[in-house]
């Protein structure tokens, strides 16, 4: 992470959050995860997607948080929301029922096909690092119509082979993923966007991740140095537009005044 800079300058985390929020333009119903997804969707609701309905796995539909909630179960997501329901109802009828357009996930490890590990680094029985586990992630990955991932890139996180598959992405590639989703009657079509601190990735026809846009200040060398496989780069690689003043003001003044996410 870079230190935060002043004026219209911005941190890598701010760029990542802004890029993720912009990807939500045109989306209707978004399932909010804890941490970075939380701030990104709240920014999107205030910018590119004012009609975005926020669904919190804690059991809230149509949240309009007056402040950025630290946890996804904060009281501010309830007061003034459209519906507060049991988790049974949220997971059964909203998520598994197919009403979620975008499920937003973080990851500790991801592979080239967007398969995600948030469970352990190392062996399951005696891990090097015990991570939080699935929470709702594995059912979001399967049942949300599409999945957005937001995470920082590093050689430890973008890996050739993840240590544990917590949430299925495009499995071993397009052919296998499409067959299994079809036969299994999955509603989701898997991951479609990965936003990192260096750039924005989408998925090729063969379901492998492809870098489509490089964030300002990031280089392809940075990208290659923080990834465990030979990355696919779009022929028409774009430059991500830097955060606008309005976006930065929202993040700094409204959403994360303490800098918890954007340091």
């Amino acid at each position, binding site marked *: 992470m870079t230190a935060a800079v002043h004026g219209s300058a911005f941190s890598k985390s701010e760029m990542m959050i802004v890029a993720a929020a912009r990807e939500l333009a045109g989306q209707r119903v978004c399932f909010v995860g804890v941490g970075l997804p939380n701030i990104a969707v709240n920014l999107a609701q205030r910018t590119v997607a004012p009609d975005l309905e926020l669904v919190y796995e*804690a059991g809230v539909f149509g949240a309009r948080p007056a402040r950025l909630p630290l946890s996804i179960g904060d009281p501010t997501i309830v007061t003034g929301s459209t519906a507060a329901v049991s988790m049974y109802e949220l997971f059964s009828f909203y998520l598994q029922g197919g009403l979620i357009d975008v499920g937003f996930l973080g990851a500790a490890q991801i592979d080239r096909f967007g398969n995600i590990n948030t469970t352990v680094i190392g062996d399951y029985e005696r891990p*090097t690092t*015990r991570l939080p*586990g699935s929470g709702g992630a594995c*059912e979001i990955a399967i049942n949300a119509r599409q999945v957005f991932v937001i995470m920082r890139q590093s050689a430890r996180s973008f890996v050739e082979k993840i240590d544990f598959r917590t949430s299925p992405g495009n499995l071993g590639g397009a052919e296998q993923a499409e067959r299994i989703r079809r036969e299994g009657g999955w509603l989701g079509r898997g991951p479609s966007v990965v936003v990192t601190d260096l750039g924005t990735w989408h998925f090729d026809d063969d379901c492998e991740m492809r870098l489509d846009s490089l964030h300002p200040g990031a280089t392809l060398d940075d990208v290659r140095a923080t990834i465990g496989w030979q990355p696919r780069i779009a022929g028409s690689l774009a430059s991500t537009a830097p955060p606008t003043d309005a976006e930065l003001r929202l993040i700094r003044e409204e959403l994360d005044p303490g800098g918890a996410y954007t340091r």
Partner: protein
Amino acid sequence: MTNPKVASMRDAIADLVRDGDTVAIEGFTHLISFAAGHEIIRQRKRDLTLARLTPDLIYDQMIAAGVARKLIFSWLGNPGVGGLGAIRRRIETGDPAPLEVEEYSHFGMVGRYTAGAANLPFFPLRSYFETDLPVVNPLIREIESPYGDGKVYAVPPLKPDVTIIHAQRADAAGNTQVWGLLGCQKEAAFAADRVIVVVEELVDEAVIRADPNRTIIPGLIVDAVVVEPFGAHPSYVQGAYDRDNQFYLDWDAITRDEGSIQAWLRDWVYDLDGRTAYVDKLGPDRVASLRPAAAAPSGSVDYGQYT
């Protein structure tokens, strides 16, 4: 009601929580009964199996205090902040003792309580496909649809010996009402053999009967009602007090070190005789700072008198 259930926290935990029990203190971020967890620590219960979607700070504290031999869960962390050090050390290093874990997803845990509450042998769900979770947890099993349209996964019922929940209010019979996040308290309570309800406020039966749709748990399944205002701190109670986010942030440092956790437990649990002392120690300023900025009334609806 003929059988008063109102009890002190000390008596409720002493009478209803036994060594070796499976205990679920439920509440998703909202309404977590830290007061009950601390009393379990004080009474030095042992060999518990602790079930909860999100073990959170309360199970980190309980596991640091040595009450548990096993954890059943779906998300292990300090939400929005970081990790739970005591639990992680038990898992990563087996120090000071190995902790058995049984792991699901959120919906899997909700489904387990639901099957327990509904006396079903399993709960079916569209999850776990192509993941490693069924590999490491053989209780997550495939089940074939009897209509020839493929497979889903099943999780087994979870029937805690004791479920403990915190709520805004209950009457003396244990009829309990909650607003705000509902989590899976209802399912966890119906699934349990014994139920302890901890409330901010004991109300007259007439308050409950004025709004029967607000009732999430009937007194029928409740064994004890404990009145313990502020008993959910540092978690929160919708309308009564805010989540103490500063405490969650502070815990991140405390939990990194076994010594600092034990010191915290001594200062805030063992050396206090109950929640009143805890609130006193917290101090009136901290308590006042957590009150909502203003009221947000639901408004009243009319059920009508039909005579």
